[in-house]
C-alpha cells in the first residue's frame, strides 16, 4: 500500500513533467516553423530608422585561452562600426587576457578594454557586468561570454528583434557547441543544448511568450537594466534571476534563433560537474527566492514558469529518485507493488518520447540528425541524463548547507580549453 502510494506519487510527478516537455517540444517545432517569417518585414522597417548604438559586453576573468578567438569573431561582426562598441571587461585578470584585449583595442577602434575597479572587482560575472553598465551609455547592451564565437549576423539579428518588438526587453539568440566532436561529454552537451533551446526556449516562447536569458548571446535595453538596478550579484544563475525580474516589469523576452553564437563546452567531467553544479545551485536559489513571493508577481505566467523550475530542480528529481528506489527495493524485496503492465508500457513510452523529441530538435539543425548521434541519444538516456540526477542532488545538498551556514555565493568560472 505504502509502496503503491509512493510509486503513484513518483509516476505522477515524472509524467507531469514529461507531458509538459512533450507539449514544449511541439511548441518548439512550431516556433521553428514560424520565427523566420517576420524577418523580411523587420528588415524593411529597420532600414527606415536610425540604428541604435550598441555595446557588446564580454565579461572575462583569466580567459587567455579563448579570448583571442572571441575577439576575432567580434572584429568581424556585422554592425555599423560607428554605432558599435565591443567592451572586454577584465575582472581581476592575472593572465594575458588584458594584454590580448589591448592588442585588439589598438587594431579596432570600436573595441575597448575595461578593468573592474573598487567594489566591483573580483566579484564575478554579475558584478563585472554592473561595472560596465555604469561606465557606458549605449541604448542597447549585448552580452557574450568570453568563450563565444558569434556568427557575423548574430548581433544584427538581436538588434533587429529589439527594434521591431517594442514589448521585448531582451532578445535571446541561439548558441551552438563549437567543440561538439571533441569528447564523449561534448557530444552529449551538444545534443543537450540543441534540445534545451528548441524545447525549453522555443517551446516556452511559442506557447507563453517566455524565454530565459541564457547568459550569453542576448541583447537587452539599457533602460530596462537601469530600471532593474543591474544584475543581482548574489545570484549564481544571474540570467534566470534577471529573466524573472524582466517579466515582472511587464516585458517579455524573445527567443530569436536567427542570432547564432558558437560556444565552448566543458570537455572533461570535472569541469562539467563544477559548471553544472553552479547552474543547478543558482536555479535552486532563484526558485526558492521567488517561490515565496509567487503570488505577488504581477505576471502570472512567470509564476507558472517558476513553478516549472521548481518542478525541474526539486519535484522531478525527487520523483525520479523515488521511482529508482522503488525499482531497486523491488529487486530485493517483495514490496507488493500493485501495478500492471502499464508501468512497463509507460517506461517504453517515456523512452520513445525522449528519442523523438530530441530527434526533432536535432533535425532542425544542420548535419545533426545522424546515425551516430541517434546512437548517442539512446546512450544519453541511461548515462548523461542519470548524471544530472546525481548532480542536482549534490547541488541541493550544497545549497542547503549554504543556507544553513548563511554563506555567500561563490562564483566558479568555467575552465576553458
Amino acid at each position, binding site marked *: 500500500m505504502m509502496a503503491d502510494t509512493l510509486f*503513484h506519487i513518483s*509516476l505522477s510527478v515524472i*509524467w507531469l513533467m*514529461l*507531458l509538459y516537455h*512533450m507539449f514544449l*517540444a*511541439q511548441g518548439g*517545432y*512550431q516556433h521553428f516553423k514560424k520565427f523566420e517569417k517576420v524577418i523580411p518585414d523587420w528588415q524593411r522597417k529597420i532600414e527606415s530608422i536610425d540604428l541604435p548604438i550598441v555595446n557588446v559586453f564580454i565579461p572575462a576573468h583569466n580567459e587567455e585561452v579563448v579570448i583571442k578567438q572571441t575577439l576575432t569573431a567580434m572584429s568581424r561582426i556585422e554592425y555599423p562600426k560607428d554605432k558599435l562598441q565591443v567592451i572586454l571587461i577584465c575582472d581581476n585578470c592575472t593572465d594575458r587576457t588584458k594584454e590580448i584585449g589591448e592588442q585588439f583595442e589598438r587594431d579596432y577602434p570600436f573595441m575597448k578594454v575595461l578593468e573592474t575597479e573598487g567594489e566591483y572587482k573580483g566579484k564575478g560575472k554579475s558584478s563585472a557586468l554592473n561595472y560596465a553598465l555604469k561606465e557606458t551609455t549605449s541604448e542597447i547592451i549585448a552580452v557574450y561570454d568570453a568563450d563565444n564565437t558569434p556568427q557575423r549576423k548574430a548581433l544584427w539579428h538581436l538588434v533587429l528583434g529589439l527594434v521591431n518588438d517594442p514589448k521585448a526587453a531582451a532578445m535571446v539568440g541561439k548558441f551552438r557547441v563549437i567543440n561538439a566532436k571533441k569528447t564523449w561529454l561534448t557530444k552529449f552537451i551538444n545534443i543537450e543544448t540543441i534540445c534545451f533551446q528548441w524545447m525549453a526556449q522555443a517551446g516556452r516562447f511559442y506557447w507563453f511568450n517566455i524565454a530565459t536569458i541564457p547568459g550569453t548571446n542576448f541583447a537587452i535595453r539599457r533602460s530596462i537594466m537601469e530600471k532593474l538596478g543591474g544584475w543581482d550579484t548574489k545570484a549564481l544563475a544571474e540570467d534566470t534571476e534577471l529573466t524573472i525580474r524582466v517579466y515582472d516589469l511587464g516585458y517579455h523576452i524573445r527567443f530569436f534563433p536567427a542570432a547564432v553564437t558558437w560556444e565552448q563546452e566543458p570537455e572533461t567531467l570535472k569541469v562539467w560537474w563544477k559548471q553544472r553544479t553552479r547552474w543547478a545551485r543558482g536555479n535552486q536559489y532563484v526558485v526558492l527566492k521567488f517561490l515565496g513571493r509567487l503570488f505577488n508577481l504581477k505576471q502570472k505566467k512567470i509564476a507558472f514558469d517558476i513553478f516549472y523550475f521548481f518542478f525541474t530542480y526539486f519535484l522531478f528529481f525527487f520523483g525520479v529518485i523515488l521511482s529508482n528506489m522503488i525499482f531497486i527495493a523491488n529487486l530485493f524485496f517483495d514490496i507488493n507493488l500493485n*501495478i*500492471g503492465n*502499464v*508501468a512497463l*508500457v*509507460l517506461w517504453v*513510452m*517515456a523512452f*520513445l*518520447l525522449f528519442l*523523438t*523529441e530530441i*530527434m*526533432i530538435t536535432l*533535425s*532542425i539543425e*544542420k548535419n545533426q*540528425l545522424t546515425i551516430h548521434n541517434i546512437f548517442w541519444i539512446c546512450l544519453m538516456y541511461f548515462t548523461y541524463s542519470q548524471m544530472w540526477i546525481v548532480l542536482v542532488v549534490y547541488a541541493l545538498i550544497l545549497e542547503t548547507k549554504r543556507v544553513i551556514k548563511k554563506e555567500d555565493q561563490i562564483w566558479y568560472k568555467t575552465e576553458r580549453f
Partner: protein
Amino acid sequence: MSFKNIHVSFLILLLLVIYFSSENVQATTEALHLDDRKVSLVYYGSDENTWANVLFLDSTLSGLFHDVDIIELNQMEKDDLEETDILVIYLPKKIIDLEEFSVINIFDGRVLGIGEGAEDLTAFRDWTFQDNAKIDQLNGTHLNYPQAAVNVQPPDKAEVLSEGKNLDQTHSIVIKEEGNSFIGLNSVITEVKNEISRLMYDLFELEEPTEHPAYIRLEDISPAADPELVLASGNYLLDRGIPVYLAVIPVYVDTDSGMQITLEERPKLLEVLHKLVEKGAYVIAHGYTHSYRYDESGEGFEFWDAELNQMITTIDQDEMPEKLKKEDEFSSKNQFENYMESARLIETNYVEMKLEDSIQLLTELGLPPIAFEAPHYTMSSNGYHVTSQYFSALFGQIQASDNNWQVMIDPLFIGNPAILQGMTLYPETVGYVDLQYSDPLSVMKENIDKVLEVPGSVVGGFFHPYLGTDYLEEMVSELESIPNLEWIDIAEYGHHVTTDSIQVNTTVNGEIDVVKFDQERRNWLDKIKEKPFESVLWGIVFITAIFTCLFMIHLATLRLQYRKRLFEERE
C-alpha cells in the same frame, strides 16, 4: 492537423470521461411544493410498533417538508438540533430520566410532542396530565378499535384541534398552544392516521392544498393477461385524459409446470402494451415474476418469504430455507450481527438480480419502466435500499418491519421517507375494485371518503384489467366526482431508472428517454472506476503515443525539407 485541435480533442475526451463517471441523476422533488423549515423527528424505543409509527410520521412529514431528519433519542448529539426549526418527539412510553436529554429540553423552536412519554418534556411542564384514558371516537368519527389516549388538561390559552370521546367523557387529543403542540395518542398509524395527517397543516401552519393528486394503476399485467382487456382498459383511461400506469410483470411462472413464459412469447399482448406506451402510458416494473419459489405469478410474493414471514434468504428457489435464527440463539450480539449480515448479502444479491432482470427485459421489449412496485408491497428495509439504487419512484405502501410483512404503513402524501433511501413514494390509499363484495367498489368508496378529509392527500388506487371496463368506468366516475382531483403525471416529477447497462429518464415534455450502455463501454467505465490511477496512466500512454506519432511526422517533414533548407542557407 494542427496541434491546437488535438489539444482540444484531448480536453473533450477528458471531460467525457469525467461526465460519464458521474452520471447519477437525482429525482426532483420540486413538483411537491414542500415547506423549507427543517424538521427533526426524535423517537425512543426499538419495538416494531414504535418503528412503524416513526416511519409513518417520517413519510407524512416528508410529504410536507423538504428536510426531515430521524434521530433516536439515545443517539442524539449536542448539535443535532442546531438547524432545526420544528422538533417532533414521538415517545409512546414514559422515559424515567427524560430531563437528562437536555438537547431536546432546551430546544426553543416549535415542538410537537406525541405519546405519553412526551408529557415529561420541558415544553409541557405547565400542562396537567392525569391517568390514561381510552377513546372510541376521534373528532366525531367512530373508531372500530378503542385506543389508549393521554388524559391531558390543556392550558387555558390552548386550542384543542381534535377531541376524543369515550362514552360521555371527552378528552382533548390534539392540542396546540403557541409554539408547542401535543398529540395524546401512542399510535398514529391506526384508524386515526387520517385525522393526524389532516391536522399537520394546522399544527405547523401550512397552507392547505386544494387539489388531490390521483392515479389509477392497471395492475398485474403479466404474460397471462388478456390483451383485449388490457387494451380496452388502457384506451378507456387514455381517452379520458387519465395517465395510464401499467404495473407489468414481465415473466409469468406457471405453478403446475414451473414453466416460465415471458412477455416476448405473447406478441399480441406485447403489441397492445407498445400501443399504450406509444400513446403515453407509463410502465411500472411490478417485480420480475411476482413470485418466489413456485408461486403463481400475480399471486406470490417476490421480495419477501411469505411462508416463513422473513426476508429472502436463498437465491436457489428450489431449496426451502431455514427459519432465520433469533438473537437469543447466539452467544454474542456480534455473532448474531454477522449472521444477519451474511443473510442480508444473499437478499441483496437476490433483489439486484431480480430488479436487473426486470428492467433489462422490460427495456429490451420496448417497455422501459419508470417506477417500481413491489409485489404485495412487501420488502425489507435492505430491499428498499437495494431498490433505491435502481429506481427513484415507488408505488404502493411501505412494509414497516423487517420481521413481519403485515406491518404496513400507507401514508397519504407523496414524499421521500428515509426508509426509501431517496425514492419517492406514490402511495396507494384507496384500494381496488374487489369482487368479493356485493358492491365491489364499496370499500374503495369508503376509503376515498376518509382520504378526502385530508387536504392534499393522494387518491391512489388500482384496477385489474381482467375485470372488464364496466368496473373501470364505475371506478373512474367515482374518482372523477371528487372535486379538485388532479391526475398525477409522473414525468412532471422527474424520475429515472438506472442499471449498469440502462438509464431510463423522464423528460420535461413527458417522454421516456432510454440510454443503453453497450457492455464494452460499461466494462471500460467500470475499469476506470475500479483502478482510476491505472486508467489515467493508460490515458497518458495513449496521449504520448499520439504525440510520438505526431513527432515522427514532424521528423519526416523536416527530413523532406532538409535539402531545401540547406540550399536556402547557402544563399
